[in-house]
């Protein structure tokens, strides 16, 4: 084709030839695609409409999607008359065995010789029972995403519809233990990435007819399926409908994680307090559903969203419910103590050593004063130093594999801690307080709340540094006001404390025995309040005989 090029080395000529052949190929593809589009446009007058011409379909698919190696497009014939058909699927997204079996079966299909394409299509549609769903569609905008999510498409020449066979089989991992919310005993099952499995896991725990899964497709590129799950007979319909409305309203190109959904659902975008509880534990989600809450499952993310939430919800774990109530109560109180220590110990230390030393007992003050002699930095600078070290160690441990993380912990705690005191940069008391603070803040069971407290910790430090205990108290009031002002789908965030809901206090910082918790949380306003009959005294007509030898009457 390019005979007349002036001189030029052979290498250059080769490059030119290659480029030209690429352009040619592209042009051919384009021509093919345009052919497909044009023929369909000619037949239907609509670019989105399936025309029924197999060639057009092929022309349309082959040069675009068909370029990727994972897309399989196969033409074949069905029945004795050899009606042309086309199978299209994404290799790897589908169950290959199933597709093979079905294709074989197609070959053996007894098709009456008089069959028109339409009757053939109907026959095919009725015939597929081995696969899950069989749907038909006739718009490209529906067909393509379905195929890319694992459906197998079956086109028959002359039919302006396509059969979409549910042959989805994602590469999925097995159900594993909940890593981020460990529990010493009780159920350990965690969600997987596969939405269907998630739903199955919930179904198994709540085989109730009123368990609803309402699906939404979100993301113009990702086509992520999002499921709104709830128990229809008890979840407050107002909450359910507003959750649904908000989920449906999300307009976004791509949704990959549950958090992307979650941040759309939060009522106030910028509040530092988490509005949504994320959990990978099936039992926790199931319990919350049974209380009248709504869960949101996101495809490809093993964490479910639970809502609406109160602050208290973030302090409740599955473990509280698998241990006797005394244990559950103790654990929660310890978490509260951990919060108090983590949040307030350091600010109080700052306030009492820098602003209000008059409040300390003299001996403690002299001890602190003694340990601070010759320190180059004010207490607040020491806090910054120590906290930076802790956060860096923490982040380093997060990034490293498990085995190395332990080493980092040791290095951080022992080596850096000891060295920094020896070097005289930070006083020994500060090390104790920083350690207690870090430990205290790590007692938060919900990860999403941990960073909240870490931010607020700094605000408190600044308040304490400027105004001492007065600053701490004033900031605490601001905090209380803020938390009280929060509402989560109409549920006050600080309930059951403000507004006070006496009935709900039984499962707050304490946990009463289950027979003494006959009601679902009032604050959720579920349709059915009672979750247990009133606590009956156990009938024991014969028990007095249990210790003697029992004689049957």
């Amino acid at each position: 084709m390019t005979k007349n090029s002036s001189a030029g080395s052979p290498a250059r000529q080769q490059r030119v030839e290659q480029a030209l052949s690429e352009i040619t190929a592209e042009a051919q593809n384009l021509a093919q695609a345009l052919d497909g589009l044009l023929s369909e446009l000619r037949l239907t007058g609509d670019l989105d409409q399936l025309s029924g011409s197999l060639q057009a379909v092929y022309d349309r698919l082959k040069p675009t999607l068909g370029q990727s190696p994972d897309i399989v497009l196969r033409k074949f014939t069905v029945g004795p008359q050899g009606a042309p058909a086309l199978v299209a699927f994404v290799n790897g997204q589908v169950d290959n065995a199933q597709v093979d079996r079905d294709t074989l079966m197609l070959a053996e299909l007894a098709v009456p010789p008089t069959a028109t394409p339409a009757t053939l299509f109907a026959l095919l549609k009725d015939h597929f029972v081995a696969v899950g769903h069989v749907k038909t569609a006739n718009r490209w905008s529906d067909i393509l995403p379905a195929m890319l999510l694992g459906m197998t498409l079956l086109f028959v020449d002359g039919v302006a519809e396509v059969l979409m066979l549910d042959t989805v089989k994602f590469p999925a991992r097995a159900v594993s233990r909940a890593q981020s919310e460990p529990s010493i005993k009780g159920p350990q099952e965690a969600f997987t990435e596969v939405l269907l499995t998630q739903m199955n896991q919930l179904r198994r725990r709540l085989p109730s007819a009123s368990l609803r899964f309402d699906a939404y497709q979100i993301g113009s590129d990702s086509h992520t399926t999002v499921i709104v799950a709830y128990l229809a007979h008890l979840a407050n319909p107002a909450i359910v409908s507003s959750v649904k409305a908000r989920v449906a309203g999300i307009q976004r190109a791509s949704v990959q994680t549950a958090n992307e959904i979650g941040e759309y659902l939060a009522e106030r975008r910028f509040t530092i307090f988490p509005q949504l509880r994320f959990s990978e534990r099936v039992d926790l989600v199931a319990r919350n559903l049974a209380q009248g809450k709504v869960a949101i499952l996101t495809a490809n993310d093993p964490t479910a969203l639970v809502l609406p939430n109160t602050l208290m919800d973030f302090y409740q774990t599955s473990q509280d419910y698998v241990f006797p109530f005394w244990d559950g109560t103790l654990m929660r109180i310890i978490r509260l103590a951990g919060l108090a220590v983590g949040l307030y110990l350091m600010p109080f230390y700052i306030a009492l050593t820098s602003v209000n030393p008059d409040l300390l007992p003299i001996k403690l003050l002299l001890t602190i004063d003694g340990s601070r002699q010759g320190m180059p930095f004010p207490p607040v600078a020491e806090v910054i130093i120590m906290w930076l070290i802790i956060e860096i160690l923490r982040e380093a441990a997060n990034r490293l594999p498990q085995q190395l993380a332990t080493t980092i912990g040791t290095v951080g705690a022992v080596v850096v801690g000891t060295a920094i005191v020896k070097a005289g940069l930070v006083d020994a008391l500060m090390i104790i307080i920083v350690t207690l603070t870090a430990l205290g803040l790590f007692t938060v069971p919900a990860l999403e709340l941990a960073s909240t407290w870490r931010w607020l910790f700094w605000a408190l430090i600044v308040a304490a540094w400027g105004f001492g205990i007065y600053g701490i108290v004033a900031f605490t009031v601001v905090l209380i006001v803020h938390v009280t002002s929060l509402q989560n789908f109409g549920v006050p965030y600080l309930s059951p404390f403000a507004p006070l809901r006496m009935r709900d206090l039984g499962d707050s910082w304490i946990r009463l025995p289950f027979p003494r918790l006959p009601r679902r949380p009032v604050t959720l306003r579920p349709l059915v309040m009672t979750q247990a009959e009133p606590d009956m005294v156990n009938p024991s007509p014969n028990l007095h005989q249990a210790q003697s030898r029992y004689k049957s009457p």
Partner: protein
Amino acid sequence: MGGGYLGLGIFQFPRELVDFAGPDAGWAFLLICLGFLGLLMLFLKVAAIDPDHALGYTLRRLLSPMVGWPLDAFRIVLHFMLAVLVVANFGQVMRSFFLIGTPAWAIEAVLVATSLYTAWYGTAVLARTIEAIFVPTLIGSIAIGALVVHQLRFRWAILPTGHLAVTPTLLAAYHSAYIFIGFEVLAQAYGHVRVDRRPAARRWLFILFATTVVFFAFGYVVTMGTEGPSALATMQWPPVSALRLANISGFFISKLGLLVVVLWGLFAMAFISIRFWCLAHDVGAKTYRVVPPTRYHGALIGVAVVVFAGAQGFRTVVGVVHVFQTWGLPIMMGYLVGLPALLLPAAWWRDRRAEHKASEKAPM
């Protein structure tokens, strides 16, 4: 709506009581309590005249705009004055005992900002926050007070004498009336309570009043018992000084009594935030009690700025007390007695006329 009125009196009580009544202080206290119980009832009646409209509107409608407008403006000025006094007083207390090196404006700015934020989200949040803060603060103060109970050296001064000197007792009651001033906002809050819960709210109001009476009685006992009548009368903030004596060993904080200053900052904060809320409603409201959020927030910020600026006018507590005792108290008491005295007959007259008209119309 908890203790919106503790913020004013808590720092000074019972200085004037003892100063004026001498050994009859107990009787004077009883008199104040009874008097204010009566006023509380009257104000509830005022609030019930027309719970759906702003008080200013009711004033204008019942007493004609000529009287209503100035009266309404006067009310607003009163609210401002009280807020300013409380802010200034608290700034002085903090500066004297707790944050000695910090300028009063900074302390007051924190107080005003906190109160502003408390009032920011409106009635429900304000009520809930105060509910959450009020009870622990009250319990905390009483616990600290209990620490000094064993130090009551002047037990003999607590109970009043058998023979009553009338004039000093009345004077003392009048000059100490500040302890309950501010309760009238509770009556104003009445309109914001849901109709079906109003009887309960009314009951709570009385319980609250009783709690406050008990609280002040406790404060009186502790202050009088530890400081004695003569020393007490020489102090600016007798209860603060009394509770500063609370001291425990074997704990991380030994001078718990000093914390009381901060703790009562919460009362002051509650007082001011309620006052802000009221003012923002009064300034913002035209006819109805409900104010649109933008206007409410705008009014709130304006009110806070004015109050903060006003508080800067006082450099020492002497000025605060002087202004309050010479101007604030008579005006406030005049208002408290005058408002029901004007409104209730007017409302009664209106109802009677309405009845009259109805009966005139009925035969037709």
